[in-house]
């Protein structure tokens, strides 16, 4: 508190008890409640000085609390603190199972500190906390709550007029907003990530050609339906593959050096382009899409990792990001495929456009390989 100037007139002065010269710092009375692990665990710290108002922690009355006195008072302390706490959810009130007890140090001295498992009747996490400690003794007492969700911390202060706390987290950016944010990020990343767009373009070129490159023309154009099916197969394979590796990498199950991943992604574009002209990697474009899709997934994961640091609900973010990437792909196809399909009927496209495009994409790909490879 800030020091203030005040004066009692002589006629109003009362005899004063001299203020004791305590060494500990002065702060308002606060308890600290740390909720984590779901929250299924509670750590609660209560100042010894505050506990002295509620329990007999100074048995010999010498105005000092020794380690022995505190240990003796442990049952009374834990009973007092536990009875001032009430966790609940829809299945009823939850029990507190003591896990550890001792002391801790805060800016104004030692506190009694205890860790509990919070056990609700249905085995789920608690949804509400009611806190009633010390308010009858100190109207300015506060319960300072720190609530941890997946590395994200939220803080609250409970007082005599606000004794309950909703633990469901409706007041912070919920999962829906995290999801929506990452859908957006996924779309953006696909659309501005030229390498993924080029790879997709190369994959769909064969499906836009009237005659499959590797088949002897039978004199009839392939039906649109067949080409759309082929296209769907390619896109599905690519999507399935990069979803798998994106999840594996985002959840820290597999991790690859990002420089090599980027290099292989660049190389994949060139190889796919080459494969359109000379099918060295086989005729089944969907297999190619799946194989290189695995590598592209690691590329997406590195972007996602940069975005999710400090965000709770990684799984939600992952799902959102993935969906965003798919939506981006779909948007590209909806716009791009009809154009290429129309062009596919023109000889100049087949004989000139496609080779030029493939050559250009191949050149870009090689340039990126040289640029990205960690060898130079």
């Amino acid at each position, binding site marked *: *508190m*800030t*020091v203030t*100037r*005040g*004066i*009692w*007139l*002589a*006629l*109003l002065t009362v005899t*004063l*008890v001299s*203020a*004791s010269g*305590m060494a*500990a710092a*002065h*702060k*308002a*009375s*606060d308890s*600290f409640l740390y909720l984590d692990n779901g929250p299924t665990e509670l*750590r609660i710290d209560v100042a010894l*000085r505050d506990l002295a*108002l509620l329990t007999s922690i*100074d048995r010999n009355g010498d*105005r*000092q*609390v*020794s*380690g*022995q006195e*505190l240990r003796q008072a442990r049952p009374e302390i834990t009973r007092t603190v536990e009875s001032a706490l009430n966790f609940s959810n829809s299945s009823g009130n939850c029990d507190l199972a003591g896990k*550890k*007890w*001792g*002391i*801790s*140090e*805060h*800016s104004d*001295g030692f506190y009694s500190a205890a860790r509990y498992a919070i056990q609700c009747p249905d085995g789920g996490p608690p949804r509400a906390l009611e806190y009633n400690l010390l308010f*009858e*003794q*100190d*109207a*300015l007492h506060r319960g*300072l*709550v*720190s609530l*941890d969700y997946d590395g994200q*911390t*939220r*803080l*609250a*202060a*409970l007082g005599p007029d*606000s004794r309950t706390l909703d633990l469901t987290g409706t007041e912070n*950016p919920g999962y829906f907003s995290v999801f929506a944010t990452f859908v957006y990020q996924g779309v953006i990343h696909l659309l501005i990530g030229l390498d993924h767009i080029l790879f997709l373009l190369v994959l769909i070129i064969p499906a836009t050609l009237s005659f499959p490159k590797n088949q002897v023309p039978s004199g009839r154009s392939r039906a649109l339906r067949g080409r759309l099916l082929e296209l769907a197969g390619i896109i599905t394979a690519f999507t399935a593959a990069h979803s798998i590796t994106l999840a594996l990498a985002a959840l820290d199950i597999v991790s690859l050096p990002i420089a090599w991943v980027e290099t292989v992604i660049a190389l994949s574009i060139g190889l796919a382009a080459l494969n359109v002209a000379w099918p060295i990697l086989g005729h089944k474009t969907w297999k190619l899409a799946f194989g290189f899709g695995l590598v592209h997934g690691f590329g997406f994961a590195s972007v996602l990792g940069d975005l999710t640091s400090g965000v709770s609900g990684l799984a939600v973010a992952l799902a959102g990001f993935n969906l965003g990437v798919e939506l981006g792909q779909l948007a590209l196809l909806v716009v791009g495929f009809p154009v290429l399909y129309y062009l596919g009927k023109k000889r100049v496209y087949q004989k000139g456009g496609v080779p030029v495009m493939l050559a250009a994409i191949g050149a870009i790909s090689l340039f990126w390989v040289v640029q990205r490879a960690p060898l130079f």
Partner: protein
Amino acid sequence: MTCFNKPPGGRFSRCLGPVFSLPALRGRPFWLIATFAAFQAQAAPDPIITDFGVDQILTELPRSAAEVFRETDSPEEAGDRLQILITQARASGDPRYLGYAQTLVNRWPEEQLTDRLRVLRATLRQSLHQFDSARSDLERVISTSSDTQQRIQARLTLANLELVQGRYKEAEQHCRAFQSGYPGLIAQSCLASLQARTADPETAYRNLASQLADSIDRQPADSTSRLWAEGTLGNIAAQAGLPEAKVHWQRVVKATPNDLYVRAQLADWHLERGHFEQVLRLTQGFDAVDTLAVVRAIAMERMGHPGSNELNSRLRQRFEEARWRGALLHARDVARFELDIENQTEEALRLATKNWESQREPLDTRLLLRSALAAGDKVQYQRVRDWLNEQGQSDARYPEFKQ
């Protein structure tokens, strides 16, 4: 980009950044998304110590905590206890006493409050920076009470409240009314403070000094009045830039070592002059009191004291916890800490501005001027200068005097 305070020659450097604002704690719990580093510390509390020794003394307890909560029907007894608690809070800087006092006050229904309890409640409210409700309690006692003593105490308390808030017209009215009910050094101190802050500190100083000398010659004034006048003389002398400030404050500190207000003024005076050793001596053993601890921390930092980092980190933790709590009783001290230790000029300016909305004593005003200069906020700086011109207030401690 980092901003350092006091650009040379009064030139402003642009240094504007996002201003984070704490929601006020009003009834409902509030959430803060802990995205800023200051709060990361609390996310991981210190581990629980289970192997503490049986002989270790863990804490010392204050004497009178338990008896506070004894039920009483007697407003006199409740009043005595309340007054002791408020005085203890003032003398120790320990806000827990204010909490106990608030508990005591809450037990008395509004319609059963006596005039004395109402004056005490106002004093408590002032300590908790609830200035408007304090004012309305005091005005009610002044206008309705039949108890002369309580009316006089209410006048004095209200005069001081208005003086602290920089409402000098209202303060003058209450000083004069107080003087007619209780003439003497305290009333003269009240009027001298006003004259100093609205006109001429040197004349105010000379007048009050001769009044104090007269009263000592004539008949020894009671020590409360005399020390109050000495403290006031120190304040006015410092405002006028007179070296006598030190002597007056030293007398008060010697007679009442627990007068934290005067102790802090004196420590600040030494700090401004670079007398770091004196600052350390005055603040020794008062780390618990925010105002004194911050002055000490600044002195330690400037003299390169080896204990500097340790004190800074303790204060940092204390202020983080206070922020978590959401109360801003400490805005002035935190602002100064942010300005002079942390070099967080924007945050210092934000807190100093907030503080100045309710408290406009010279050290509050100086803090805001310095913060505005450091943060390069011309608008805020000019706003304070305009207010000072309007009041006719000048102070040797304001930064423009040092250029």
